[in-house]
C-alpha cells in the first residue's frame, strides 16, 4: 500500500462519515430549519436570481437578453461618471468607515465607564440618529439662504459675509454628506459593541485588579478587547456595508444628481440606471462591482482582526 494513503479515507468512506455526522446532528438542523427556509426563499433565491442579471440587457418590460461582458466593459471604459463615482465612494468610505468604526468603539467604551442610568441615556443619544428618519432636518441646518442655522450663526459671528450654498456648491457637497453620514453612523455596530461590553464577565475585571492592572487603558487592552473579538467583527461588517452603500442620504440632502456629480456614489449610480433609466442589467453590473469590492475589504479586515485577536 502507498505510504501516503495510510490514515486517509476513501471517498465513499468520507461520504458515509459525513452522513453519520449529519444524522448525529439532526437536532441542529431542525433548530435552524425555520430560519433557513424563510431565508432561502426570500433572500437566497432572489440573490441567486439577480447574480446573472449583470450579463444581460434588462429593462423590466422585456425578458432579459444575454449580452456577455459588454455591461462591464462599458462600465470601466466608457462611463466616466462611474469612474468618478468610484472616487467619491472611496473618499466617502475612507472618511466614514474607519473613523466611525473607531468612534463606535471609543464611545461604547467610554459610555461603559459611567453610571448605569447615564449609560442608557448616552447610548440613546448616540444611537437615536440612526433610529430616526430626521436627517431632513440637516437640510434646514445647511440651508443655502440666511435662514439656514449654520449660515445664520456664521453670519452673526462675522465669519462669512454672504450665505454659503452648502447643499449646491460643488466644493462643500461631499463634505456635508460625510458629516451627516458620520452623524448617522453610530448604528448597529455601536449598539452591538455596547452589548459586547455589557456581556463581559465582571469577575474578569476583579481578577485583573488583583493581578495588578493599574488603569482603564490596561484593562481595555488586556481584558476587554481580547474578549470582544466577535462584536468587533460584526461592527466591522456593518461599517463596511453602511460606508460603501451610502447614497440615500446624499440623494435626499444635496439632490440627485448632485452638483457636478460631486457626491455621486456607486450606489447612487446604480439607482440612476436602475430606477430612473430602467436599465436593470447595467445597474446590477454596477452593484456586482461594488459587492466584489466590499467582499475583498471584508476578507482583509477579518484577516487583520483575527490576527490581532489571537
Amino acid at each position, binding site marked *: 500500500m502507498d505510504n501516503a494513503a495510510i490514515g486517509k479515507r476513501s471517498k465513499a468512506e468520507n461520504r458515509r462519515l*459525513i452522513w453519520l455526522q*449529519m444524522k*448525529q*446532528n439532526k437536532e*441542529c*438542523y431542525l*433548530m*435552524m430549519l*425555520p*430560519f433557513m427556509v424563510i*431565508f432561502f426563499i*426570500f*433572500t437566497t*433565491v*432572489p440573490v441567486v*436570481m*439577480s447574480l446573472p*442579471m449583470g450579463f444581460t440587457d434588462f429593462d423590466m418590460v422585456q425578458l432579459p437578453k444575454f449580452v456577455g461582458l459588454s455591461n462591464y466593459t462599458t462600465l470601466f471604459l466608457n462611463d466616466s461618471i462611474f469612474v468618478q463615482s468610484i472616487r467619491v465612494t472611496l473618499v466617502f468610505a475612507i472618511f466614514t468607515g474607519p473613523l466611525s468604526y473607531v468612534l463606535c468603539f471609543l464611545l461604547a467604551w*467610554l*459610555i461603559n*465607564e*459611567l*453610571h448605569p442610568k*447615564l449609560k*442608557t441615556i*448616552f447610548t440613546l443619544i*448616540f444611537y*437615536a440618529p440612526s433610529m*430616526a*428618519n*430626521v436627517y*431632513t432636518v*440637516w437640510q434646514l441646518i445647511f440651508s443655502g439662504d440666511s*435662514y439656514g442655522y449654520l449660515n445664520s450663526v456664521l453670519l*452673526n459671528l462675522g465669519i462669512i459675509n454672504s450665505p454659503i450654498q452648502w447643499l449646491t456648491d460643488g466644493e462643500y457637497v461631499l463634505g456635508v454628506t460625510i458629516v451627516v453620514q458620520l452623524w448617522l453612523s453610530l448604528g*448597529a455596530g455601536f449598539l*452591538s459593541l*455596547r*452589548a459586547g461590553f*455589557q*456581556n463581559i*464577565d*465582571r*469577575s474578569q475585571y476583579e481578577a485583573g485588579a488583583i493581578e495588578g*492592572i493599574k488603569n482603564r487603558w*490596561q484593562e481595555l487592552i488586556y481584558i476587554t478587547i481580547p*474578549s470582544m473579538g*466577535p462584536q468587533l*467583527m460584526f461592527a466591522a*461588517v456593518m461599517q463596511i456595508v453602511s460606508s460603501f452603500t451610502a447614497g440615500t442620504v446624499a440623494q435626499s440632502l444635496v439632490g440627485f444628481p448632485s452638483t457636478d456629480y460631486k457626491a455621486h456614489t456607486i450606489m447612487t449610480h*446604480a439607482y440612476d440606471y436602475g*430606477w430612473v433609466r430602467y436599465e436593470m442589467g447595467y*445597474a*446590477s453590473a454596477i*452593484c*456586482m462591482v*461594488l*459587492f466584489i469590492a466590499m*467582499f475583498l475589504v*471584508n476578507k482583509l479586515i477579518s484577516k487583520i482582526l483575527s490576527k490581532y485577536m489571537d
Partner: protein
Amino acid sequence: MTDTKKLKASNKQAGRKIGGTVAIFVFLLLLGTFMALPIYLACVMSIKPVHELFVFPPKLYVIDPTLDNFKDMFATLSDMWVPFSRYVFNSVFVTVCVTVAQCVFASMAAFVLAKCKFPGNKFLNGVIVVSLLYQSNVIYIMQYIVMAQLGMINTYWALILPSVASPMCLYLMRQSMTTIPDAMIEAAKVDGANMFTICWKIVMPNQKPALMTMIIFAFQAAWNIQGGTLVYKESLKTLPTVVQQAASSGLARAGVAMAAAVFMLIPPIVIFMIAQKNVIETMAHSGIKD
C-alpha cells in the same frame, strides 16, 4: 456633580479615578450635545407654529408652542379611505409578528451555527456574511417575482415574511454566542439536556445584552416596513407609508414632516428604553451569581 459618588461605587474595577470619570462625562456630554442637536431641532420644528418657521435669524427654541402640526397630520390621516385605526393595527400586527418570529428563529439558528459542529456549518456562516454584503437593487424585483409566484402579493405575508429571516440579527447573535464556553454546553449535555433546552434554558439567559440589541434592531426594522410594491391595497398599508403621504401633503410642509418623523420615532425609543433597562438589570443579577 452629585453622581460621581455613585459612579465610583458602581465601579469595583481597578484604577478608577474620579477625575477620569468626570472627564469622560464632560467629553460625552459635549459630543452628545452635537449629536442630539438635529433631533432637538426636529422636535422644536414639530411644535412651531407656521409663522415661526420662517423668521430670521432662525431660533433654537419655540416662542409660542403649538400642536397644530400634529393636528394637521392626524386630520390628513383621518381623511383617508381607510380608518386611521386600521393603519395602526397593520403596523402593530406586522411589527409584533416580525419581531417575535425573527428573535425566536434567529436565536435558535445562531446558537446552532455558533456552537455545533456539523457538516455545512462553515458554508452557512459564509452565506450569511455574503448576504449582508450583497446589496443590489435587482433583489427587490426578484423578491417580487418570488412573492408573485407564491401568491403573496397584497397579503400580510408579503409584509411579514421577507423581514423575518434577517441575516444581520442572525450574525449579531452568532457572534455574541461564540464567546460562550464550550464546557457549559458540554456540562448540560452530560446532564441530559437536548439542544433545544440548552439553547433556551442555558445559553439565552446568558445572552440578554445581545438579545435586547436584537429586539431593538428587529423592532426598528419592522416598524419601518413599508410594503412598497408588494402591497398596494389601501387596507393593508402600514403607518410609515401613510404618515409619509400626510407629511408631503401638509400646509406647512417642514413642520408637518417633522411632526410625522417625531411621531414615528416614539415607539422605537420606548422599546429601546425598556430593552436597555433589562440589560442593566441582568448584569446586576449575573454579578451576584458569579
